[in-house]
């Protein structure tokens, strides 16, 4: 597998609490799944996807976790057009 170069902007993942370690008051669906953290930072040493790695975050903290994504990007957008919205405000007698 290809090595990701140190210094690359990446996302790591870490399980903070396994289902049995979680708070006791959770609803059933949440109780079944682990409590998971994801965080972005610069990779400290060359590594492959899926390896346990360390990163340096934007404020300089070093955190450890499983290497998940290279160059994590924001893909959120305005979504597919919702035609129901388009005529609002054109109908009102202003």
């Amino acid at each position: 597998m290809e090595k990701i170069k140190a210094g690359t902007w990446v996302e790591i993942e870490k399980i903070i609490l396994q289902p049995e370690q979680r708070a006791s008051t959770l609803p059933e669906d949440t109780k079944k799944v682990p409590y998971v953290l994801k965080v972005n930072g610069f990779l400290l040493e060359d590594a492959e996807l899926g390896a346990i790695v360390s990163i340096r975050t934007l404020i300089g903290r070093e955190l450890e976790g499983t290497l998940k994504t290279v160059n994590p990007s924001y893909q959120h957008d305005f979504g597919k057009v919702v035609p129901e919205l388009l005529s609002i405000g054109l109908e009102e007698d202003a």
Partner: protein
Amino acid sequence: MKKRDLSYDAVMGRKNEIMKASLGIDYEDYIQSPIAFDYERMMAETGYTHEDVIRIQHETKVGNTPLFELHNLTRAVRGISPPGKGARILLKDEAANASGSFKARRASISAYEAAEKGFAGMISATSGNYGAAVASQAAQRGLKAIILQEVFDSRGVGQPEIIEKGRACEAYGAEVLKLTVGPELFYLLLRTLEETGFFNASLYTPFGIRGVESLGLEIAYQVRTDYGKEPDAVVITHAGGGNLTGTARGLLAAGCESSRIVACSVDLSGLHMASDTDFNRKSFTTGHTGFGVPFATWPDRVDVPRNAARSLRYMDEYQLVTQGEVFYATELLTKLEGLERGPAGNTSLAAAMTLSRQMDQDQIIVVQETEYTGAGKHQNSQLSFARENGIEVRRGDPAENVPGESIVIPERLEQVRGKGQDMDSLRLSYLKNAVRHYPMEKWSPSDIEFVAADINKGESWVRQQMAEMQSTAEADH
């Protein structure tokens, strides 16, 4: 050095010491009993006067936001109102603050305090606009910032609105800890405070609330200057209670004693706030009843020993609106008033459209905030996402709206109605919560006095309700 126990119970058990170190406030000094504390003294002893707050906020691009009259929307509302009705609707454009929301007011004093006390950084657990506000204020004060966010469900699917807020935090240079659904956010907050020694920029400290008081002061000043009178009603989107508490305190400090304080939340009743599967069935991530009702009826459920946001003290009325009504109000603001703003901030606008119809034309109703908009934080993003998650989206009567199943967008202005909540039943819920925390038999006269002030009701009413609860409990025995 002995390694700290990082298990859930161990960290939660160290809550008080972690809080004390990360805030510099000794809450013990104010606490009088398990339910009562010296609220006004705690607020006064922040050490910041209103003049200080305004000066500090001006340094970091906060405050003095415009107050606009919504002429076209007011005219549209008058067109469907009884003769003589249809109060003037004014809008406080809080999107003009650095980071794009009123939350900058809340973060600004904490950032100043953290820098003054020599902390290297500040931390907050929030999925709201507050994260970007903390990050932006920290950047300006030369502090590091860590934001903990509940972003995605166990499938890794994130709420578009929260993803955008996370992006903004990162844009301002913060470290963003992105988490799955669960109240353990608080556990990780404590762990991170302990690890870093950073300042706890909780939403619920006296600094946070003091920072919002300037919003109430500005509204009072601007309405008096422009209209020569006081606002008749101020509508405030309500979740954790800080927006309402701070604004109302500011209005009172400015002498606006007759202004009606109206809380407003999006009705999401029936959806569980800690549920992994309900998480992405909500199209509002804040300003909704999932926070608004529990925080009003028991404020001390927060990340500090005593909450400085105590909404029932100041609330005269509590309106609920549906998600569809808020999206409709957002579209009207855009198309009739030429202002594109984020939907969550327009919750109070939807309620104001209803209330204006019941008020006289010479009266003034103020919608006290807006927030920025953009990819993710937009009615089209949120409705498109709702559809992808199996929620039915259609035009119709918003009364048919079912949270988590359907979003019904009004077809006409007349269908925007909102729904008032019974204030006394909210007060009674508070009272029951208080009794759950501290058995009634142990209450002293000063506990009763505190509770009466905290729910804005006479002591005799409190005593009467206590007697009724007592006799019900005996009958059940």
